[in-house]
């Protein structure tokens, strides 16, 4: 673990960029330099940043599919179980044969949506390791502007290609300002 002269553990070296466009160009340079453990921070999602960082499609959709299928099956169980097994309900002598199955579709549809939405909601937090109490990036006082108008890039010290001089130079070359070391603790 890399340490500062004062004994703090180093989380990353970070820089601020003046605009979304500058951050986007810098991200492409960092990606091409072969870094793996790094991230960019912005007040809003920047269009095309995933490609600029070399990230693929988010497979959160897999969880949503799982949620949808379980919702459909739950609805089928909740409807067919009581209606055909537990308590066969005869309402005004209306039919309850096989051809009435479409009457069960609306609830199947609703529960499919409901479970898919819960899956999406919990998956985006789980896959992002949220909620969390703190993060090393918050140790940098300038970083509070990330939710306002600040654009930041941080390369983690854990990255095998991380060297203090090399990363500093790279951040400087890409137009990074206020380059600093971010403490782990």
């Amino acid at each position, binding site marked *: 673990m890399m340490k500062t002269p004062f004994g703090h553990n180093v989380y990353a070296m970070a820089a601020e960029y003046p605009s979304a466009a500058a951050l986007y160009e810098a991200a492409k340079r960092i990606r091409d330099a072969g870094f793996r453990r790094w991230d960019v921070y912005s007040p*809003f999602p920047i269009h095309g940043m995933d490609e600029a960082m070399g990230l693929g499609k988010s497979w959160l959709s897999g969880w949503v599919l799982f949620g949808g299928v379980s919702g459909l099956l739950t609805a089928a169980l909740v409807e067919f179980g009581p209606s055909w097994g*537990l308590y066969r309900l005869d309402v005004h002598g209306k039919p309850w044969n096989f051809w009435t199955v479409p009457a069960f579709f609306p609830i199947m549809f609703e529960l499919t949506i409901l479970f898919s939405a819960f899956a999406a909601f919990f998956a985006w937090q789980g896959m992002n390791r949220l909620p969390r109490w703190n993060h090393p990036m918050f140790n940098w006082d300038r970083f509070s502007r990330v939710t306002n108008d600040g654009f930041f890039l941080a390369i983690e010290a854990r990255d095998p290609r991380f060297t203090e001089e090399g990363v500093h130079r790279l951040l400087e070359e890409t137009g990074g300002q206020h380059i600093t070391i971010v403490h782990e603790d």
Partner: protein
Amino acid sequence: MDAAPTVASETIRQAERRIAHVPLVLNRRNFSWLTERISAVVEQTAPRWWWVAFTITASAATFGLFCIGYQISTGVGTWGNQIPVGWAWDITNFVFWIGIGHAGTLISAILFLLRQKWRTSINRSAEAMTLFAVICAAIFPGIHVGRFWMAWYLAPIPNNWGIWQNFRSALMWDVFAVSTYFTVSVLFWYTGLVPDLATLRDRATTRVRKFLFGIFALGWRGSNRNWRHYEMAYLLLAGLSTPLVLSVHSVVSFDFATTVIPTWHTTIFPPYFVAGAIFGGFAMVLTLLLPCRAMFKLQDVITPQHIDKMAKIILLTGSFVGYAYMMEFFVAWYSGNAYERFAFWNRVLGPYWWYWWLGMLFCNCLSPQLFWFRWCRRNILVVFFVSMCVNAGMWFERFIIIAGGLIRDFLPSSWRVFHPTWVDIWTYIGTLGIFTSLFLLFVRFLPMIAMSEVKTAVPEADPHYGELPGIQSVSPGGKERTR
């Protein structure tokens, strides 16, 4: 080859300017201006008008809750409902409120899928409106059952005799549709709120605010690795909400369409109800946003262009509704069914004739037609007037559909006109109070405009901004009307 291409390229440039050069955020406001102005609504002390408005709405809400308590403890007899009019103001209010919610979901989900960036200025408050409207709507099915303490029969669990619900019933579908709609709307709304709660957390000056916003912001830090999953979740929630919102009012309409009452028993109801819901909902969005925009000085974010577009949607959906009204009359005539024909003549000339002429014809069909004219869409007073007409008209429409079908039973000896009691009237006014109180609390405690989303509508948010100096996606500004 010398003169012609110059003219053509000049024409193209002019045409492009007309399309691309209407900015969504006026006066070239930057990111920090947006953060400051939108957060200020939450962070400054409450203005005096807010306290005045809140006192009025909260009083109405309190009296409405008293009426609900009185109705629960005394019985449904406190309302004017009497056979054959078994459904009256209660279900009218339910359909009215649930319909209003639909515009919020249309803005947040359907316009998102259609890549309409102008939605970013209005989606947060419209979604909040959806939640509050659905809360108001949910009150009525609960209390109209009469024995409120047995409302748990609605849940899919067997009752004390081991009898299960009838899952083939449209009313059971409605329970699932409305509860799913509310839950998914909350999840979608909260997902959108997280980055903005992080903004308020980072700006917070007191420990309480830091703690509360810190908890609800979930530790959000704007990381792109987080945005990646977040955006996929947001897209999928939008994709899920789109068929959901269309299903909800379709299912509500099934409550009527699956019965044998003339004027209810029609196949046109699902699309007719959905169009009416979006129509009425947009009117309510405008009713809430026009005063907020003026009071909190948000004219640069909610611009005349936004109002113009909402007015166009009201015109479109209002015309759908007008078409549906005409088609109902046509089918009543064309079917040759004597009961159906009678019911529709009764709608126009019967005891509720003025509800039809004023509510359905003038408010719903004619008043939105003003929006064919640009100066009407650009005139705040005209827009507000039409919105209020539509708010009222849609309530009248639901009442005519529900009570108008019931007052003339198949047996003329049981014909009876509905008269609301003071409990009916004040329960409805009470829900108006609950709705507006919740909205007033919302604008004071949460960012009423999605900051992280509206920032993407600013040209500087484009990663290629400034690469092509000739074509900017925004004009140098200053000429747009801001109020």
